[in-house]
């Protein structure tokens, strides 16, 4: 893929934390997943700590995920080489010594905010303080749940999708979209590592989804504040409050507030792992609501999945074509530029 092209470059920075799995996906068993074009195998040791190794045996490259966990070590399913959490080989069959160069790559891992984060670049630069702060997922004043979607598109197409919610009007009209979204003006701001799109829709009819959350069908002030956190996370602060109760001025107490937490991890150039959760800070103890919201958002996102897969196919079917960009793409364009700069920095 020619990385120099403008809108069609598939690049990603490697010196970054990427969500590799949801916390519930990883247990005391071998779990394979490809991240950033590299096959990985993950597991938790008996103490519950996540380990991520390269999923290719040093010996003859058999995926280690086809092997067995024995006492916190991975035994290759072919000739029995064993590796510890650091990827060092601890056993070789039919010889008394171990080849000193035998190892598989071990990746820096942090478990935070319900995700297992893995550092794909130079391990010496892995800095835990750089894990995206997706606190909503496990904050005592918030509740919610989500899932991971296998996205059949380059991860940037998902970022584009989330950075511009105008599409709600056309893709999700029966749930969260209505004309107000496509009509309301918005602001785009950015820093070196973030971009924000803010849209307030004042004194509008709430779409069906929000009527249900608010529990009444009244005129509302609605907000969507989309926060991109480089390189691949987007937290969308969303909600409605009865019109005129002060939400635009900062008093959201009469309204309902959610956060759509998204982090997208490249799998290959044309596929990605799309981790999301819908968190809310109201009705915290209502477990049924958590369940309904998760199911509802799953339905909504499946509409995006269709669009994104078709878009990826269209990119491949139209080689050499670049995107045009509209005013509505401002947020997405900043996202791409910030990522490009990070990639550029790594090359120099």
């Amino acid at each position, binding site marked *: 893929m020619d990385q120099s092209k403008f809108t069609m470059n598939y690049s990603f920075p490697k010196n970054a934390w990427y969500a590799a799995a949801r916390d519930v996906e990883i247990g005391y068993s071998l779990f394979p997943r490809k991240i950033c074009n590299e096959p990985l195998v993950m597991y938790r040791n008996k103490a519950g700590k996540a380990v991520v190794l390269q999923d290719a045996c*040093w010996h003859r490259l058999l995926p280690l995920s086809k092997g067995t966990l024995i006492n916190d070590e991975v035994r290759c399913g072919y000739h029995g080489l064993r590796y*510890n959490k*650091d*990827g*060092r*080989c*601890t056993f070789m069959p039919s*010889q*008394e*010594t*171990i*080849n*000193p*160069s035998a*190892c*598989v*790559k*071990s990746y*820096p891992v942090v478990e935070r905010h319900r995700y297992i984060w893995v550092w794909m670049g*130079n*391990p*010496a630069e*892995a800095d835990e303080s750089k894990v995206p702060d997706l606190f909503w997922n496990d904050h005592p004043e918030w509740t919610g749940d989500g899932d991971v979607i296998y996205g059949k598109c380059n991860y940037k197409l998902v970022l584009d999708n989330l950075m511009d919610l105008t599409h709600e009007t056309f893709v999700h009209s029966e749930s969260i979209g209505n004309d107000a979204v496509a009509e309301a003006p918005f602001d785009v701001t950015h820093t070196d590592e973030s971009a924000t799109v803010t849209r307030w829709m004042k004194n509008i009819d709430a779409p069906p989804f929000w009527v249900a959350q608010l529990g009444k069908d009244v005129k509302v002030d609605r907000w969507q504040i989309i926060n991109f956190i480089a390189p691949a996370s987007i937290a969308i602060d969303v909600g409605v409050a009865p019109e005129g109760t002060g939400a635009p001025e900062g008093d959201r107490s009469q309204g309902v507030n959610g956060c759509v937490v998204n982090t997208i991890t490249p799998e290959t150039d044309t596929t990605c792992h799309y981790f999301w959760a819908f968190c809310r800070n109201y009705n915290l103890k209502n477990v049924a609501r958590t369940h309904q919201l998760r199911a509802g958002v799953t339905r909504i996102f499946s509409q995006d999945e269709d669009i994104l897969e078709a878009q990826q196919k269209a990119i491949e079917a139209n080689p050499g074509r670049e995107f045009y960009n509209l005013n509505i793409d401002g947020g997405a364009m900043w996202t791409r530029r910030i990522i490009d700069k990070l990639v550029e920095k790594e*090359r*120099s």
Partner: protein
Amino acid sequence: MRFSNEWSEGRIKSIKQVGETVRQFEIDIPAEVSFSAGSHINVEVYFKGHPEIRSYSLVGKPRRTSVLKIAVKLLPESKGGSAYMWTLEEGQKIRVSQPKNHFELTYGSSEYVLLAGGIGITPMVSMAEELLAKGENFRFVYAAQKRSDMPFSEDLNTLLGDRLQLFVQDEHGLVDIPALVNSMKKGSQLYVCGPMGMLEAAKLAWFQSALPAEDLRYETFGTTGLYPTVAFKVNLPRFNKTVEVSANQTLLDALEEEGIEVMYDCKRGECGLCQVDIIEYSGTIDHRDAFFSSEERACDKKLCACVSRVFEGELTLDTSYRG
């Protein structure tokens, strides 16, 4: 991790004497590459007109660069690589591979101890730079025969200050390796690169301590043993032949030259594929591999033909050929 060689044509940018018997080469390469701590490159050298491959560690801070720095010690009994390198002049072309690494740092240790002996310093410089940049807890012990042949010691001294301990054998005697190992706790890693005697001492001390085997890390290019490198004679009754192994040739090379096939892979004494059976010997077998355990060596029943030799004696061997 093992990768196929990707060759490119480099050019010698500078040559500098950095020790009595050590020269540093800076090689310009056509495109930038990144290398990690402990990496080496393969270099094409010519020996009696035939191309051969030698590995040299990259010196300096791990980074993206189009200038690769290596240091080569002239070994009188060398396999030919260092002698060839020393004939090179600035501006000359040289074929080099991309950086590779068989000696990676494993991160997350509570303490790192780097032990370098002589020319074994080369991979350790990048490790020290990396550990320093990362703010890791580490110590560096660098030993050599004489002060005048201790490349990079001044730079390291400036860089590392108190973390560096220099041992000049002619002035202070040998490093007390058992004491060094005893000063380490579980969770520490020891990285060793140096002559066979040093590595053997470290392995023995490590084995006698309760430290986990995988935390002792070493790299050997299989070039030194416990005894001097001298010519020796090999008898091969199965082939009805006697072969002379010269001082600048390996046993494996000598056998191959005679058309006697031996399997091999690493050619650095690690994989064990080149092992041959010892029927009889005189003198001392100088095991220079990392494949056999000390018990196995003590029986002197087999040796790794790619690196091991005989000192002041003669060998009678058999290969796996049964035709």
